[in-house]
């Protein structure tokens, strides 16, 4: 059962000068981790951001369809706010707001009108899910920027979880982190996939192999190969995929 499906997805930047995604067609399965790999500049981030329409901020033009839960999010009728509530995102560099831990997690729910008395429970639940609760439960009012990079990134995950999304997009969430924090986040991803559909961009082939069920390989804006991670890594069908994952890429 797929929750995200794209049809002839094309994304352009700057008055169509840059053709960043070319006819991408993919079906992403529910409650699975899908990894996006490919060399720098191949359009991974662009693809990810087309799933919550964050690309629009950068003046990108999108053509084609992105169908989430059976509805095309680019049909002009979709409410971006509802969309982004359903599709959460965690960015490459941890970007907590310069507020307290509590306010960071409570930010989304407050925006969406969750009642005050429900906030405490929701914040705790989200922090627990993000495996951060034990580390911060006594420091809820401290400003988020004082915490380590790994903690900040898990805080950003908790913040995304607090609005109760169905899908979470991760853009190289570990690239700015040390190995220990990375391991924690990977464990977290395996945990989270039971409840959420996860799409993750990574430059780290081992990471893709470790955490993902499916893998998509992008090259110069095209989706070259997509399949079960094991398949793709062990028996790549395309020569280019093979070159890339074996590190023979020129």
């Amino acid at each position, binding site marked *: 059962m797929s929750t995200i499906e794209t049809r002839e997805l094309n994304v352009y930047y700057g008055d169509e000068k840059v053709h960043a995604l070319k006819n991408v067609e993919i079906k992403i399965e529910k409650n699975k981790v899908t990894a996006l790999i490919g060399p720098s500049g191949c359009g991974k981030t662009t693809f990810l951001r087309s799933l919550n329409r964050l690309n629009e901020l950068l003046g990108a033009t999108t053509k084609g369809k992105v169908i989430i839960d059976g509805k095309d999010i680019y049909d002009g009728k979709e409410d971006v706010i509802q969309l982004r*509530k359903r599709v959460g995102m965690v960015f490459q560099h941890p970007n907590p707001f*310069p507020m307290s831990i509590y306010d960071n997690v409570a930010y989304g729910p407050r925006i969406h009108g969750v009642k005050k008395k429900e906030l405490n429970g929701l914040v705790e639940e989200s922090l627990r899910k993000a495996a951060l609760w034990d580390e911060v439960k006594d420091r809820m009012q401290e400003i988020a920027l004082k915490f380590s990079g790994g903690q900040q990134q898990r805080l950003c995950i908790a913040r995304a979880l607090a609005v109760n999304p169905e899908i979470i997009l991760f853009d190289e969430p570990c690239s700015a982190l040390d190995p220990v924090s990375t391991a924690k986040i990977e464990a977290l991803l395996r945990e989270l996939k039971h409840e959420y559909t996860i799409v993750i961009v990574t430059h780290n082939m081992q990471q893709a192999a470790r955490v993902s069920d499916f893998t998509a390989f992008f090259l110069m804006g095209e989706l070259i190969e997509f399949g079960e991670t094991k398949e793709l890594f062990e028996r790549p069908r395309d020569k280019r995929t093979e070159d890339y994952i074996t590190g023979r890429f020129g």
Partner: protein
Amino acid sequence: MTGNKKITEKLVMIGMYVAAFITVAALFTVVGYVYVKGIGAISLDFLLDYPYRLEFGGIFPQIVGTIYLAAVCLLFAVPLGVASAIYLSEYAPDNMITGTVRFFVECLAGIPSIVIGLFGLIFLVHYLGLGISLLSGGLTLGFMILPWTIRASEEAIKAVPGSYREASLALGASKWQTIRNVVLKNAYPGIISGILLGCGKAIGDTAIVLFTAGSGLEWFLPMAITDPVGSLTVYTYILATQAHTEAGILRAFGASLVLLTMFFMVTVTALYLRNRYVRRMSGW
């Protein structure tokens, strides 16, 4: 050879110390002189009395007038300026038109206040018939600090990292919610600091007020916004150039002292806020 070089280096260093010293000395001399000379004039009577004839009485209407003028100026310029800054930096597309507008605003931010004063005198006072009044003066001061407020607010807004906006939008916040809860919440010390610096300009301006607000010696408080209003700057100017007695000059020093004190209070707050803000934006 090396000996010579060493001596040259020493001399240059000394030269720099001297230059820095002169800069600081200039400030302390001017401010110190005014405070030393002016402190003799300060008394409760002086602060709370109304002036009469050229060289008698106190400066109560001038103090109040200065505050009134700054208030009208800010009431006009702040909403317009901050709203413009928000629109220009968050909503307007980055194109030729906004580029041109920005360029004009930037150029205008440094235009001599006397030119704006002349505009106020001819357009507001005469054409619109607002007369020499609190309204004319406050509005003209507002015209002066408007480009300034826009520029300062825009700088503060731009300093908020884009990643905060993205994070907020990705959580499903709307554009305005993002601006209010993330952008403005982080930019406001910078914006306030810019506004206060503008307020300092308004308090310290003479030419505009002289042209549009009053002759400085008003012995009454304005009862309506269309009444003329006194100000510390014009009072100082008139007494400094027209008083011929010790008492008159002393009053000018007293008024300068009060003016400087008000100015310093506003500016120090502004600079304090700005420094704190810069530290916060750079992640402490």
